């Protein structure tokens, strides 16, 4: 099994989640994070609202899903397509990391292995 961790723009979250489901993903988890990559942050008002300050990192959403090995390419491309903004994509659209998962257990049944994520 593989773990896919995708960092995407918060406003893209629903779109990406729908794309994942369309791609056959059965389960996912997501949460709010703050992140920095190539994107250079944002100007925000500080103190009593008289001047701007630079904030390096931005709100993002982390989407995590564990999938069978075979779904890797389909899942990654569905994320890329659904998370990309504009035709060309833009800085800040996000990143996807893939890693190995050794085991999975479904709590309700105690069932183990790949079937728990299919």
């Amino acid at each position, binding site marked *: 099994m593989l773990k896919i961790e995708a960092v995407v723009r918060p406003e893209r979250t629903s779109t990406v989640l729908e794309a994942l489901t369309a791609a056959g993903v059965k389960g996912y988890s997501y949460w709010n994070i703050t992140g920095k990559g190539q994107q250079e942050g944002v100007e925000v008002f500080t103190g009593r*609202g008289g001047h701007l300050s630079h904030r390096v990192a931005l709100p993002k959403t982390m989407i995590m899903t564990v999938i069978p090995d075979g779904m890797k390419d389909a899942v990654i491309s569905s994320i890329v397509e659904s998370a990309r903004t504009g035709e060309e994509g833009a800085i800040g659209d996000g990143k996807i990391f893939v890693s190995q998962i050794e085991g999975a257990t479904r709590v309700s049944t105690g069932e183990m292995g790949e079937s728990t994520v299919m």
Partner: protein
Amino acid sequence: MDTGHIAWMLTSTALVLFMTPGLAFFYGGLVRGRNVVSTLMYSFIAMGVASIVWVLWGFSLAFNDASNFGWSGGLDYIGLAKIGTGNGELGWDIPDLLVAAFQMTFAIITPALITGAFVERFKFTTYLIFLVLWVTFVYAPICYWVWGGGWIGSLDGGTLDFAGGTVVHINAGIAAVAAAYLVGKRRNAGIEPHNVPFVVLGAAILWIGWFGFNAGSAGAANGTAVFAFVNTNTAAAIAAVTWALLSYIHTGRISGVGVATGAVAGLVAVTPAAGWVGVAGALAIGLGAGIICHYAVHFEILRKIGLDDSLEVFAVHGLGGIWGALATGIFAWGALTDSDGGLVNGNAGHFVANLIAVVATLAYSGIVSFIILFVLDKIPGLGLRISESDEDMGIDISSHGERGYVADGAD
């Protein structure tokens, strides 16, 4: 006694008291989440401590005309005992006890205003003592000088402080400078306010409560109160809009916190003028407040000289108050002040008197606030500042054993 006046003054007293929790939320929203409880409590506990001080001796020091060598009022009203059933002895057209209650709400919010200078690091126990000392040695005397029969209120030319430009705002503003200097900078100042809705909530409560503050300072439900009401709203409105426009010009965005601050700046500046200028005067005062306070915050004037007046108390209440006091001398309307009016009418009397009042307040409050805090800092077991690790962890957990928000799966 006139029941209409009593009704309005009871209402006004409640409205002004509501301002202190309003301030709590304004300040509370501006700090970081890990210090929100502490920031709220600085204001909230003032409703406790300052009320007691006021009832026991503060009111007497401020309003008993049996003067104490000119420094403060006398001690005849200790415990409010003698005024309990008095009617009009203080020269107001309402029960004396109601005067004491109304004025109490000013003695509560004034020290609470100062706390914006030292949020996120000031020791709460020391603060409790500071409240007692400051109301006694700074607030009460200045209040006496301006309103209780003392020298400032009796200046030739006619000092005009309708609802507390000097007594409340300049007083708190300069004390904030002293406090920021003595308590020192925050170790880590944060960037963004943690809860803008709370700032807006606080500003809204302040705006509404300020009708009690200013229109209540007429002491009656009469035409002067109505003028004060309209001027208060007008100045707040134009100062808020002015800030919005300046914000847009300089940054292309309109800060919500800035708009809220603008409204407060307008309210501060119109305070000494409320019942003594016309609507045009209120517009001018509010416009000036919006511009002055915006640029004071924009250029971080105190930060430039190394002071961490964290929530810009001096820029808003100090400068806003000074502008308001002087502007009252400029725009006073003779028909309302029963005099020759302000500078615009060629009468410098009010302006000069108010200038003296400003300088005296800055000097006295600045110095005595400094001394009080300096001494508290040196007393073993007290001290102004929490430890570095407590500050890092957040003052809420370390001083109050609480976290503002708990959104923890385990709870």
